[in-house]
């Protein structure tokens, strides 16, 4: 098991995100201040429209803050070019999305390989993709395309892809939204194991109690504001 040093990976200070459409302004986040530390298994919870996905998008360098300061892995995201943000995502972050998670024309192995190839991994990427799929109990799905797998299997492959390059921070946007109870539990156990064995940090947006039950820390967002930040009592894996 890997020991976590509590290093701050994400620092958000008074972060605000406003969407503008002509004269209309819609505040998605209002002055969010938050740290994410190494080893966190953090759930961002809140009702729909509370700003969970927006916060994940900002942390994932997919979007820019309107005001405030956001530092991810020591880099001020607002000051990064499009290319540097893509580099940050590619080299240091892993993503698991709610749906449309895998490239449908690639097999499970090829989906994992794709990210490794983007990262410049050479000929050993096929072996590494097989290794991670095997480690996550997905060996039998390696040569299947997404449409030949269940939703739970697809999400597990998506996790395999997100962690294949051992990123320091994995961001998951409602990863269990389309899964039944058994699949949701299996997915969370898998991510917990990765966090424990490889020292990865996970941040989820969710309103799924099955996810919240696994979290070591639960941050609550309401109308774009942090209204709670509590230590969790993770259920046994």
């Amino acid at each position, binding site marked *: 098991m890997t020991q976590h040093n509590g290093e701050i990976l994400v620092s958000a200070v008074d972060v605000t995100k406003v969407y503008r459409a002509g004269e209309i302004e819609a505040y998605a986040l209002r002055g969010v201040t938050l740290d994410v530390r190494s080893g966190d298994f953090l759930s961002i919870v809140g009702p729909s429209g509370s700003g969970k996905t927006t916060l994940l998008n900002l942390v994932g360098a997919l979007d820019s803050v309107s005001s405030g300061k956001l530092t991810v892995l020591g880099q001020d995201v607002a000051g990064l070019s499009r*290319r540097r943000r893509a580099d940050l995502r590619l080299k240091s972050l892993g993503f698991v999305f709610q749906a449309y998670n895998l*490239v*449908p*024309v690639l097999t499970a192995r090829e989906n994992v390989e794709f*990210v490794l*190839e983007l990262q410049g991994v050479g000929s050993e990427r096929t072996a590494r993709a097989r290794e991670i799929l095997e480690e996550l109990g997905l060996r039998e799905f390696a040569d299947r395309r997404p449409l030949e797998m269940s939703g739970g299997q697809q999400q597990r492959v998506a996790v395999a892809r997100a962690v294949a390059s051992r990123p320091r921070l994995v961001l998951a946007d409602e990863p269990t939204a389309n899964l039944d109870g058994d699949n949701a539990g299996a997915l969370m156990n898998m991510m917990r194991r990765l966090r424990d064995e490889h020292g990865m940090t996970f941040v989820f947006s969710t309103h799924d109690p099955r996810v919240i039950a696994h979290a070591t820390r639960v941050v609550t967002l309401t109308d774009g504001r942090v209204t709670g930040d509590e230590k969790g009592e993770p259920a046994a894996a």
Partner: protein
Amino acid sequence: MRLSTLRMAWRNLGRNRRRTGLALTSIAVGQIALLAMAGLMNDYTEKIVDVITGPLMGDVQMHVPEWRDERAMDMAIPDLASRLAEIQRDPAVKTAFARIYAPALAAPAEKAYVVVVTGVDPDAETREGGLIEGVAAKPGEGRVLFGRNAADRLGLKAGDEVVVVGQGADGIPADRRYVVAGIVTSSVDLVNRQGLIMSLSDAQAMFSLADQAHELVVRAKTREEADALAARLAASPRFKDLEILPWYEVVKGMKRMVDMMDYSVLFVLIFVFVAAVAGVANTMLMSTFERVREFGMLLALGSRPWRIVGMIFAEAAALGLLGAVVGTILGCALVGVTSWTGIDMAAWGGEAAKDFSFQGMRLPLLVYPWLKLSDVLVGVGAVTATSILSAVWPAAIAARLEPVEALRK
């Protein structure tokens, strides 16, 4: 471009097979049409040029300047024998004929009809490429040949006698009695309709043109040598008093017709481009709009926009190339079959089409299409290039995508 990008591009074509199939069909049909048209025009053009440069025109013609406009009897080439010998010494010359042309009246009985007397070298012109190629009954020593239509009109048959009345180069009327040695059917319509063929020596004697002729017809060993041959002859001091022209300068109308055939292939090529652009652009646009969220996911994972752009171009190129290859296989098969069976265009035009002629030459009506490698390559290259071009718009849309906005779609 990375292998995985090419693999994704290729597999993406199978995501909506019906749409891809329709695009492939439009491209393939265009390529088939292009090859069919090119095959048809290749043979038709070659046959027309053969007809033009064959028995009547040759590859190069030599006349006294202005003769072609005035057709005066006394505008004849002097020193004929020595000049013919000089021409035949050129290594590019296959054959060279001298001819006399003279309007005359032919009277088999009481009535007289207008004919065009053509004086030819019987030995040379009954050989391959001559005006009366393969004709057994040679003219000469008071014996003449008549064209089929002219003979029918005059009610002549082999063995009949006919009186020919004309005017010599010296302006003195001349008349002679000849025996019809034979009736000929020529690929030169002028011969069939109005032709009276007599030997060059008979014509020189009748029209007072000793060692003279109105025209020298030169055939090159290969068509490619014709222009250089014409230039060489024109540069020779021995012929500086003559007008020396390649065939396409003599019958400019025919040359324009041949050129128009090339343009007709170009016209079809443009239609093929339009079909390819419409098919591929539509497919790629729809496919791009459907996959915006997927592109957003790829960008979120750290993929560069150029990679997605490259994938779209690769898809378009694969679509165009595949359609062109399918079209080429089917088009070549079609041309292959018709090159064996031939296409009888007279059957399309009915009886009237069988006598189709232009400027005195009978145009070919049985065509055996064939293709040049360049026809296939131009089609494949043009369709593929056009397909890539038509992907510019969808690629531009993909290049501007912001991952977070794309993921929201």
